[in-house]
């Protein structure tokens, strides 16, 4: 019983900031109305955010599932180097690489585009995603794959038909984190997008809360935090069982 008391007290502490923010934002519902009308209209920004998140999740899943399988089951020259280079993404200060990235996206014609932004997000997600997926594939018994190969499947068919099913929880976990990162990120869309009509929600929310000389409109901020957080919270709760299993399935075990 005392365990439940401790847990409940802790849960109150963890949930309090969110509950307070939600409550405070409702004290003045006009904030939500004002927000809906801001700039190009909240629907524009929400659509951009959904597009960017969908492309990021999709891109991360495709790249990291293929890569994770390759790293788990094949040997090829440069494998270690590539893996370490991917992990090094975690070690570079985010803010500084954005200007060179911006210049570079210009060369490949993806400046000021949601596709370019999504690719950048995929890159930042890769260390976590590739690590997760590689470990998830490694945890699959080789017999499963070999059975498929014996059945006459090529490795790609074995991969796409059988193995992807087996790593589904890990895929969901990777997808969820890719979604959270791309949905919430503020700095990359701020720097990489030129055009107000292509801004994502976080940039719009921060814009609408800032006034002269650093003054912040807290009502708007709380409403903004809620609008941004609610889809994440819903996904979190809906996918709860899967991502816990994703972590559990050995995905993060060394």
């Amino acid at each position, binding site marked *: 019983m005392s365990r439940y008391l401790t847990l409940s007290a802790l849960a109150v502490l963890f949930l309090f900031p969110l509950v307070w923010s939600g409550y405070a934002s409702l004290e003045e519902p006009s904030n939500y109305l004002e927000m809906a009308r801001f700039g190009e209209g909240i629907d524009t920004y929400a659509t951009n955010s959904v597009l960017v998140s969908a492309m990021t999740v999709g891109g991360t899943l495709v790249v990291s599932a293929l890569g994770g399988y390759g790293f788990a089951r094949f040997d090829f020259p440069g494998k270690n180097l590539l893996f370490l280079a991917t992990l090094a993404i975690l070690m570079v200060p985010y803010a500084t690489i954005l200007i060179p990235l911006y210049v570079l996206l210009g060369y490949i014609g993806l400046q000021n585009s949601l596709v370019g932004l999504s690719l950048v997000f995929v890159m930042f997600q890769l260390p976590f995603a590739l690590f997760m997926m590689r470990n998830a594939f490694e945890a699959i018994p080789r017999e499963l794959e070999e059975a498929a190969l014996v059945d006459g499947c090529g490795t790609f068919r074995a991969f796409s038909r059988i193995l992807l099913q087996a790593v*589904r929880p890990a895929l969901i976990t990777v997808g969820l984190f890719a979604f959270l990162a791309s949905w919430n990120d503020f700095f990359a869309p701020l720097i990489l997008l030129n055009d*107000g009509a292509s801004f994502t929600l976080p940039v719009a929310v921060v814009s609408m809360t800032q006034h002269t*000389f650093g003054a912040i409109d807290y009502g708007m901020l709380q409403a903004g935090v809620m609008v941004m957080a609610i889809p994440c919270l819903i996904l979190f709760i809906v996918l709860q069982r899967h991502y816990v299993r994703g972590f559990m399935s050995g995905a993060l075990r060394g």
Partner: protein
Amino acid sequence: MRRRLAGISLIGVLALTAAACGSGGGGGGTQPADGPVTITMWTRAATQTQSERLVAAYNKSHKNQVKLTVIPTDNYQPRIAAAAGAKQLPDVFAADVIFVPNYTSQGLFLDVTDRIAALPYKDKLAPSHMKLGTLENRQYTLPHTLDLSVWFWNKDLYEKAGLDPEKGPKTLKEFAEQATTVQEKLGKDGKVHGTFFGGNCGGCYVFTFWPSVWASGAQVMDPEGTSSLNDQQAMTDVFNIWRGLYEKKVTGPTAKEEQGPTWTGFFPKGEIGVMPMPSTTLGLMPADMKIGVTPIAGPDGGESTFVGGDSVGISSTTKNADAAWEFLSWTVSDEAQVEVMAKNKDVLARTDLASNKYSSEDPRVVLINSLVAKGQTPYALRFGQTYNDPQGPWLRLAREAVFGDAAKVTQLNADVTKSLQQQ
């Protein structure tokens, strides 16, 4: 079933990627010069309302169109830096006027000296904005929006505290006395305070304290903006009065920690007797609140103001300079100034239009407009990193002077000068 789901999601992803590719690209700015041109403009969120009104009015009455993008205020500087670094500046962009000398020296703006010279009202443009947009006798910017620091006082609180609600302070000393009275009479519940200021916000200090120095006839820097005078008597006197207010707990208790996000938030709640405020917030005050407005004064009188706000210029990388200038010159025309700016009680970018058909509606607006010619905007190439940056030397100086060890000010003033002279 499961397998199909995975397949569908893969196809969906590919389709999304393909669909989204179409929405990319763009950027504009390469149309031939004869047809109607769409120019791009950036502004910071703080002065968004004014920019939006001007752009909307222009687009309605002109063939050329302006596409406005609003960027979060705190991140405007990084955004400009990144865009300039990648040579992707918009055709036109506004900037906080105090950053303009730095931008100009970095070559971000196009030289518009000759175009300005052709304007009939070239001598009537807000003088301090024009001064900051000038480098080596060449002019680069026009005034865009103006935000002045003035003292607001809450007439209801004054009445309750036994002060004359129609008489605001005429000197900084009176300001301190009246704030103290409000605090003593009404401050017992801990909600109402005599005054307030942003004590951990470099930009707030310069905006609200410096006008008192100017009002007493002194300066905070040399005209070149390379040597700090913030250790001189005039500044010390101002610091000391504020220090006294903080020590007597006449300011709200959070003044020392205030980084800026909430510094203008207390007055509209009716919790502050009298304090320096940005003039643009007058229109945002609760309609039923009785507010007096008076110029910022020195310790013994005089009046001045910090003329803040935005300037606007054409980027040096634009391909649409003529169309951009057509828009910019229109924003300071009689039509735009009176029918867009004055109509909405905004401060005018031209001194010759200070009294117009709308200004008579609110005498406070006339007062604020009249201050444009009297106020100052300090000039320094290294202004932002010296005064606004929370890691800059000025914030340390101001905080030692008001809360800490005032004896350190001399040394810190040397740091400010060093930062101003940095290459």
